[in-house]
């Protein structure tokens, strides 16, 4: 048994969000940061520069012209978008490893799906900017990666428990590990200085008691997580997907047609964003 802090501490020892990603995330919150500062940070990692330019020029952004420098990318996409791309790049390498009982690669596909769904819901249903929804989506299950790294067997036992119907994922994790991936993920995201709304979304995305305000980033992530989990991209293959909290169920019921359209359009959006999450990039 261990607590979230010790998992985070031991996880940080082995794998941490690269320096560049951390600084990029912080720059977003700095009022006096400019594209030059951003470029200064990013260009420390030439591989990252190349990958970012490829992503920026991918269909996901649909830019009319080709962008050839990071500072131009900031001009066309905004600092938040680039921050997200840096986070994607930093996280991608953490989600490696296929396993029958717990699959990090499935988790990566799941996270990418949640990120894109969350961005779609934010924009299409609520008319909100999708940057933070995307970031929260891609990172909401990072606690599972830390747990897998530090206590792989305990996590697998918890996954087995879940498949056997011994409780929710959170209950099973608590039973085997003494903590859960919401708590671990929250600590990590705090360490990475992510926005408060993103922290809350990570913290509460498995909380059935929570009364989610609608719209809110947390509500969007719970909904997107539910939808993605129903679509087979389940980090714990074969595990049942818990029902939506009642307030969200009411919301969906009232906007069925809208969600129908989102589900219909998702494959096209995923294809456009393929460059982002495709592991053989």
């Amino acid at each position, binding site marked *: 048994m261990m607590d979230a802090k010790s998992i985070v501490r031991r996880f940080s020892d082995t794998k941490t969000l690269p320096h560049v990603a951390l600084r990029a995330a912080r720059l977003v919150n700095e009022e*006096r940061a*400019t*594209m*030059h500062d951003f470029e200064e940070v990013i260009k420390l990692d030439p591989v990252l520069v190349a990958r970012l330019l490829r992503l920026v020029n991918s269909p996901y952004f649909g830019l009319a012209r080709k962008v050839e420098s990071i500072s131009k990318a900031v*001009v*066309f996409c*905004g*600092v938040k978008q680039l921050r997200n791309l840096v986070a994607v790049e930093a996280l991608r390498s953490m989600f490696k490893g296929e396993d029958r009982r717990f699959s990090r690669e499935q988790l990566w596909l799941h996270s990418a*799906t949640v990120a894109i769904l969350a961005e779609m819901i934010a*924009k*299409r*249903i*609520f*008319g*909100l*900017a*999708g940057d933070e929804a995307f970031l929260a989506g891609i990172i909401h299950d990072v606690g599972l990666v830390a747990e897998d790294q530090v206590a792989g067997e305990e996590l697998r036992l918890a996954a087995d428990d879940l498949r056997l119907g011994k409780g929710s994922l959170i209950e099973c994790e608590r039973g085997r590990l003494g903590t859960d991936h919401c708590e671990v993920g929250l600590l990590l995201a705090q360490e990475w200085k992510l926005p408060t709304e993103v922290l809350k979304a990570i913290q509460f995305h498995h909380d059935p008691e929570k009364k989610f305000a609608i719209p809110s980033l947390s509500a969007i992530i719970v909904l997107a997580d539910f*939808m993605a989990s*129903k*679509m*087979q991209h389940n980090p714990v293959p074969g595990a049942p997907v818990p*029902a*939506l909290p009642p307030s969200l*169920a009411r919301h*969906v*019921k009232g*906007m*069925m*047609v*809208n*969600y*129908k*359209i*989102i*589900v*219909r359009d*998702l*494959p096209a959006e*995923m*294809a456009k964003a393929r460059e982002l999450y495709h592991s053989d990039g």
Partner: protein
Amino acid sequence: MVDSGFDQIFADLIDELRPRELFLRALSDIVPGGGLLLLSPGGERLREGVVFELDSELEEELAAAVAAVAVPRQPSGPLPARRVAAGWLYAFAVPEFNAALFWWLPGKDDLGREPAGAALLVHALHYALRAEEREEEVAQEEQYRRQIEVLKRQHGELIEDNYRQYRINQEREQGYARNLEREIARQTAELREANARLEEISRHKSEFLANMSHELRTPMNAIIGFAELLADTPLNGEQDEYCRTIRQASASLLAQINDILDLAKIEAGKLELSPAPFNLDELLAGVTAIFALAVKAKGIDLSVHRDPDLPVQLLADSHRLHQVLLNLLGNAVKFTERGGVELRVERAGVGAAGGSLIPLRFVVRDSGIGIPASRLQAVFEKFTQADGSTTRRFGGTGLGLAISKQLVELMGGSIRVESREGLGSTFSFVISLAPAAQVAPDKAPRQPVPAATAPFPGGGRILLVEDNPVNRRLASLLIGKLGYAVVTAVDGVEGLKAMRENRFDLVLMDVQMPRMDGITATHRIRALENDPAARGQYVSLADRCSPLPIVGLTAHARKEDEESCYAAGMSAFLSKPIDRNKMAAILERLLAGQG
């Protein structure tokens, strides 16, 4: 990629009856007033509008009849209808829902009989069947609209953010510029301060040298004076040689002290020229005469050539010009062993347009050892000779050329040198001088006075006011030797007291003294002379019909010292160490006027 469809994802939330309800509502919205009943095979009965029931026989018959007949695409004739109650009943198959629809419309007329009525009903049915599709299109349109709003907002934010960055970059650039300026200003200030400090140090050094020279001159005064007195006493051959050596060495030391003092004054910016009319030929003769003996002893020639067309009476600080020529000739003679030295003065081109100034070139050429090319410029630097060994071989402070260079520059010229090692050197300079009218010798009191060959025989009583006992003793001995009676006083107060009681024909007044200095004492004497009541109390002043001659004595040879003596009312001025001949001449001149 996404294997699960919407129906699977939201299976729990999907309401299966909803599309049928949507259809019925849409239909009753278009054609209000009637009643609708939809029969599904599962037995569900959905209603909208006026509630009606058919008897089960008719319902079964109609349902079976319409089962195979869909709603036609276009109305192609009267629609089958039945008169039921106060209206008409129409029946359709709805394959989209696998259901049968009964539609009762009130009224006398069968709407379906007329082509227009039939078309209305058929089109209404088609329209209602597409209600769900339309709802989706509306939702789709709304989603597009929201996305466009988001994009517009993001666009605005991007533009704002880019503008913000532009402003920040601009501010940063201005900040860099300001920092740069501040840094430059700081460094400039530092340099200026350092420069001021250096100048201050240099000035202190020069002042120190000036004071130092003064301190050196006071004992020199005693050495030279007493050596001269010693020479006048009966001496044997050995003593005479020692005495001569002391006098030569002290004269040389005094010359060097004077050089240092001059340089210090020049560098402290305190040396000022005092131009006065002078005779060029006399100057040239005077300066060459000094080297007559040395030239003769070395067996070399010393010749002077003056351009005969030049005016002889000129205006300049002849003392300083004399000093420059003395230095140049001195070097030339010193470093020439064979051949000779030539001093040449000629007109150097035409003077400034319209001006009366005459450009004169002074040339001192020798056939001496010459100066290596690499050392040519260095010879004008202080404490430098052509090479270090010359100091040891030829002596000298190495200040002569440095002083000459500065003096020539002060006179508005510049000194040049050409030299070839082993063949000789040529120093030359050009200065522009104004011609002067002929002046009577007695109108130039500061011109060199012919040496007194014999002491004034007529006598005269002289009061010597001097605080330093050695100098007092020396001066009174010198005065006595010149044949005058001398009484001494130690300061201005004592001096005045002596004047009250005794008659004196002249006062030699030291300038710096404790209690009352020479300047103050002189002021007092001149004031007393102008006060008929007071002067009677002073024996020295009472009966005089002209001011009492007062000669200032000071070790400071500075021009301002001399000027302050005259300003206080002194008649003449002597610098210490006292030159016996100068004193003799001054005393003779001032006492000659006495009755």
